[in-house]
């Protein structure tokens, strides 16, 4: 208790370009560890682009350019010395649509750890179980681990994807609208899970659902037209935001 919050990510003067189009301008942000940070803003505001920059996913898009710094602890993710594969191991990602591999439930979770090192069966079993448990899915799948992941419901598939990300033991979990394809009950389970996950991970979530941001996050960052307009404690953002633009957006008065 009363632990001093530790910074895990520091973003400094970050600009991002798709060819000539500047998608992000002068972003400065600090993310504390073991917290849930929500990124909100209208479509095209840059929030998903920003999220993807945090594990170098945008590297995969030709014609993009990054300026500024993204420090994970004290390592600049965009330092030429840094291997993007290593970055993605430390910073896991869960996408909008559940995308399990067409493999068994077990092999979905075991895939990453296997790829990254030779592990004996016992160790691998343990990682798979721990990861599926951490994703609050164990009781539902423990007896069908060797059945295809594609037979699971959408909500279960999404939790499996979270388990798959956790299996790599990342420090940070990025989530890009993780519940937008799920029904309200599956959504509620993922939201509960997010609150559990922050005990061991730092979670950054992009969501179009403002109530979701209000429910799950500790910090909220509002993006508009490629800029970070305001970031602060979620309770403050949703009761008395400091910036007019934030107020206009969250109360639905935006054009």
């Amino acid at each position, binding site marked *: 208790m009363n632990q001093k919050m530790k910074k895990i990510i520091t973003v400094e003067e970050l600009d991002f370009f798709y060819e000539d189009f500047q998608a992000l301008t002068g972003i400065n942000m600090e993310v504390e560890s073991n917290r849930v940070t929500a990124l909100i803003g209208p479509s095209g505001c840059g929030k998903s682009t920003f999220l993807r920059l945090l594990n170098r996913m945008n590297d995969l898009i030709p014609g993009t350019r990054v300026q500024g710094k993204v420090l994970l602890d004290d390592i600049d993710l965009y330092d030429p010395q840094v291997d993007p594969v290593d970055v993605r191991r430390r910073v896991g990602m869960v996408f909008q649509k559940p995308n399990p591999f067409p493999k068994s439930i077990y092999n979905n979770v075991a895939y990453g750890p296997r790829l990254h090192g030779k592990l004996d069966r016992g160790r691998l079993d343990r990682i798979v179980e721990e990861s599926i448990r951490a994703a609050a899915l164990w009781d539902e799948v423990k007896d069908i681990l060797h059945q295809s992941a594609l037979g699971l419901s959408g909500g279960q598939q999404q939790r499996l994807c979270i388990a798959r990300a956790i299996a790599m033991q990342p420090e940070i979990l990025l989530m890009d609208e993780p519940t937008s394809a799920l029904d309200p009950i599956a959504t509620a389970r993922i939201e509960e899970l997010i609150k559990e996950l922050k005990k061991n991970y730092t979670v950054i979530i992009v969501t179009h659902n403002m109530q979701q941001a209000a429910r799950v996050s500790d910090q909220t960052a509002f993006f508009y037209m490629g800029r970070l307009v305001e970031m602060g404690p979620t309770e403050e953002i949703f*009761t*008395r935001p400091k910036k007019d633009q*934030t*107020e206009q957006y969250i109360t*639905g*008065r935006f054009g």
Partner: protein
Amino acid sequence: MNTISHFHRQIREVKEDLLMMAGLVEESIHEAVDSLIARDKAQARGVIEGDRRIDLMQNQIEERVFALLATQQPVASDLRFLSAAIKICSHLERMGDQSVNLADRTLVLADMEPVDPPRRLVAMGELAREMTCLCLDAFVQNNVDLAKNVIKRDDELDDLNLHILEEMVEWMTREQRVTRRGVELILASRHLERVGDEATNIAEEVVFLVEGEIIRHKGVATDSVGPL
């Protein structure tokens, strides 16, 4: 784009309802004070009967606000407005009750030997009415300065109330036969003082609504009360 969403139209309607309720309350206070000064029993009965409408408006506004809270999940200024609206409408309803209490004093006093209402009581009636108007103006205009002015003026009302108490006690000590009338006037003064308190409460809600800061109970913590 200058479109107003359905939700914001509904918020506007809540505000209009509140203003209508406030209008009834203002009138009720006005009539109650007049009835007391004029010893007008018919006018006093009108105030008592009229309170039913104020009570019904409170229910109507609360129901609307709850429905909006449940269905629209308002945030920021919308949330503060709706939360303030529930409280303001409850303060208004209590102001209406104080008018009824004042009208009850009129009914009792009108059957007794006439007494000139103390000069300070007339002043209290004026001030309570004025504070009621001002706090509602502050609400309509989202005007924090006006709201803070109302909060300041409540001290004047409290002072007048204290003076009347002393004045009446002195009068009753001098002439025992006036005791009942004295007590009625003390009560009337107390009712007006309560009207001022409710106006102050509304003014505090206005500050919260505009600035997002809760300013009530901001006094210095004492040993007996202590911090939270």
